[in-house]
């Protein structure tokens, strides 16, 4: 999972609105939508004005409160300098929403001394270049990193789940109000308690969105479906007749472009989760910014982000010296539209695959995401090592490359049944002694009978081996020394049963049965 720095500007709508209104920073102010407070600054909060308080009540608690209108366009436009400031320190900046930027941690952390050092530099940089206050956090994955930013914490790598566990489920607010309410009424007050539920139960009781929330709470990757690099030709370009230098013209161009990109992606069965907006000015300046979104973007979502970005460039302090002569939208990351939005997958080339996908999604809804698996074959020696079971929707990559030779791999045919837990076996020699394998990978005696799981000893009709497998002997931690043996025993009915036995740690177990 990618490690991210998240730069969070607290109460961004209030900061942006206050800046437009020319308010001093310490004046109590709040942004209000439909007569309810959606954001308040520290001074207002000190006077008891918080989220969801009614406007009348807020003004009652804090008489000199300045009530500001909500305007996402304004927030996005004023945020552009912050994103630009962060970009001066680190590459790969992605705007999550106005007020929050994410940067991959690997590059800057390696360049500067430590992650704490990077965080400090980011705060200084944003304060100096964009005149804004921010808090920086780092963790694995966007959800954990954003929570870390709210607390100004650097969560060590690999410990995001631990960090998230004691947090209140209200961290899911404001997007998942219904789920939070439900969880609290069930007595699940922390993310850890929610994460401890089996995914299957979450899927059956709470629905698909809760499964996503559950993944977040566990510190797993936020997007279950595999992201993949889209082919280059998905980008859409627009060359306006006259260079765009006014906001209205930008909004119009944005809508048309967004429509075209959305249609093109839908035609490939894809949806976009990271969108790069690029522009070239009449003087040849090149501008580019990446927007990131947890949910696949709809046509309207794309249009909003493009408009916000163009407004940010055209009205920002570093405004380009000429109008925008060429606009380009590049989907940086896409997800399979069919995994999330089946209506995107209209007919297409393979109607059978679409039907199967729908059925699998249905079953995942019944049993949980991990209940529907698709196998991927890779390299390895044992019959179980060569298979990786991938939950439907995840990226189908083999666990180990199939390419290099695998000495000690048994030739085909492979066992049709591979026990999911080890079945102990006893291999007995001519005088009833236990047969073992010595240090030179040779049997200590000829096998005469085999008993599986304490069952009756059955006479051996044929045997071959042992096939030695001395795996990664150069690495103490992963080294495994095993020997495999094929035996053919009389079956209880009239016939023969072939078994694949493996010896490790001086014990025989059944690795495969030819059923």
């Amino acid at each position, binding site marked *: 999972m990618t490690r991210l720095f998240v730069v969070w500007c607290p109460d961004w709508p209030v900061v942006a609105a206050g800046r437009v209104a020319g308010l001093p920073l310490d004046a109590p102010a709040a942004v209000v939508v439909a007569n309810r407070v959606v954001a308040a600054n520290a001074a207002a909060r000190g006077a008891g004005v918080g989220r969801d308080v009614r406007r009348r009540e807020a003004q009652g608690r804090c008489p000199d409160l300045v009530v500001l209108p909500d305007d996402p366009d304004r927030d996005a436009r004023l945020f552009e300098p912050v994103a630009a400031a962060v970009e001066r320190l680190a590459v790969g900046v992605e705007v999550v929403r106005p007020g929050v930027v994410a940067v991959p941690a690997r590059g800057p952390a390696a360049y500067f001394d430590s992650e704490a050092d990077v965080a400090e530099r980011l705060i200084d940089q944003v304060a100096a270049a964009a005149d804004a206050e921010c808090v920086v956090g780092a963790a694995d994955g966007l959800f954990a990193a954003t929570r870390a930013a709210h607390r100004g914490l650097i969560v060590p790598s690999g410990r995001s789940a631990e960090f998230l566990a004691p947090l209140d489920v209200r961290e899911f607010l404001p997007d998942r109000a219904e789920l939070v309410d439900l969880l609290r009424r069930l007595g699940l007050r922390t993310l850890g308690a929610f994460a401890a539920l089996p995914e299957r139960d979450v899927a059956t009781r709470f629905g698909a969105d809760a499964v996503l929330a559950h993944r977040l709470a566990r510190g797993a990757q936020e997007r279950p479906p595999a992201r993949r690099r889209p082919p280059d030709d998905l980008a859409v370009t627009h060359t306006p007749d006259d260079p765009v230098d006014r906001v209205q013209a930008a909004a119009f161009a944005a809508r048309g472009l967004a429509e075209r990109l959305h249609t093109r992606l839908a035609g490939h069965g894809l949806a976009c989760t990271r969108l790069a907006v690029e522009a070239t000015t009449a003087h040849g300046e090149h501008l580019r910014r990446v927007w990131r979104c947890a949910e696949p973007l709809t046509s309207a979502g794309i249009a909003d982000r493009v408009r916000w970005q163009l407004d940010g460039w055209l009205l920002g302090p570093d405004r380009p010296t000429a109008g925008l002569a060429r606009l380009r939208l590049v989907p940086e990351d896409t997800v399979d539209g069919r995994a999330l939005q089946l209506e995107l997958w209209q007919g297409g080339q*393979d109607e*059978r*695959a679409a*039907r*199967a*996908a*729908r*059925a*699998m999604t*249905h*079953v995942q809804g*019944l*049993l949980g995401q991990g*209940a*529907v*698996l*698709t*196998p*991927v*074959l890779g390299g390895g020696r044992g*019959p179980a090592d*060569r*298979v990786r*079971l991938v939950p*439907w929707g995840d990226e*189908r990559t083999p666990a180990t490359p199939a390419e290099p030779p695998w000495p000690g791999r*048994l*030739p*085909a*045919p*492979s*066992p*049709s*049944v*591979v*026990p*999911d837990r080890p079945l102990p076996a006893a291999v007995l020699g001519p005088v009833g002694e236990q047969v073992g394998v010595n240090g030179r990978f040779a049997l200590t005696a*000829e096998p005469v009978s085999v008993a599986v799981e304490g069952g009756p000893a059955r006479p051996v009709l*044929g*045997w*071959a081996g042992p096939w030695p497998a001395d795996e990664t002997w150069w690495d103490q931690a992963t080294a495994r020394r095993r020997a495999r043996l*094929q035996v*053919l025993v009389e*079956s209880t*009915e*009239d*016939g*023969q*049963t*072939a078994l694949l036995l493996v010896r490790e740690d001086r014990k025989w177990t059944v690795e*495969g049965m*030819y*059923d």
Partner: protein
Amino acid sequence: MSSPEFASRAATRDADRLAAALAASAPTVETLPVRADLAALFPWGGLRRGGTVVVHRSTALLLALLAEATGAGSWGAVVGLPRLGVVAAAELGVRVERLALVPAPGAELGAVVAALLDGFDVVAVAAPRVADAVARRLSARARGRRAVLLSLGAWPGAEVELRSEGDRWWGLGLGHGHLRGRTALVRARGRGAATRPVQRFVTLQGESIPPPLTHSIIEHMFETSTTAEPGGDR
């Protein structure tokens, strides 16, 4: 040529004509392809869409039935077999990229299989016990969706039941060789068009047994043989 042969030939010609006439009058049966040697076990020469087929005891036989269908672009699902040998499936010709596994359907078996029948051409189910009512409902669902329901183990109201008996392996000696192939006698019996029992020797896994050594083969071996005596190097 003797007269009894003539008579039998005439009889077969009549039978052929009758079969052709029946085939022309009967509604066309849509099937999913199966391996040539298994096709003879089904009166329709394949898995009839909408039908329910029971396979007794042999996972390999079940996988062999899935192979051709997935190769022809159909999707297959396997429910309730956490121990399925996927490598063996691939060796038998199953296209694993078009295979979905639901290893533990639990109490939701009926709902899961019903959902899968909506989207998959072949759904294989292994369940220790299926209630009669559920089984009939699922068979009806398969019929409605024109999918094939395979069951590993008893299933009430199945059209065809396959039973593999008397596995015979070859290739494995006492301390030499390795498992090369396996033949079994597969018996098919069922209802309706499949009432007449059929049985065939089938190579379930691996290569089929090479023909017995004849004089000319042995001579040929001795001319060009460079291999050591079997087991001599051990």
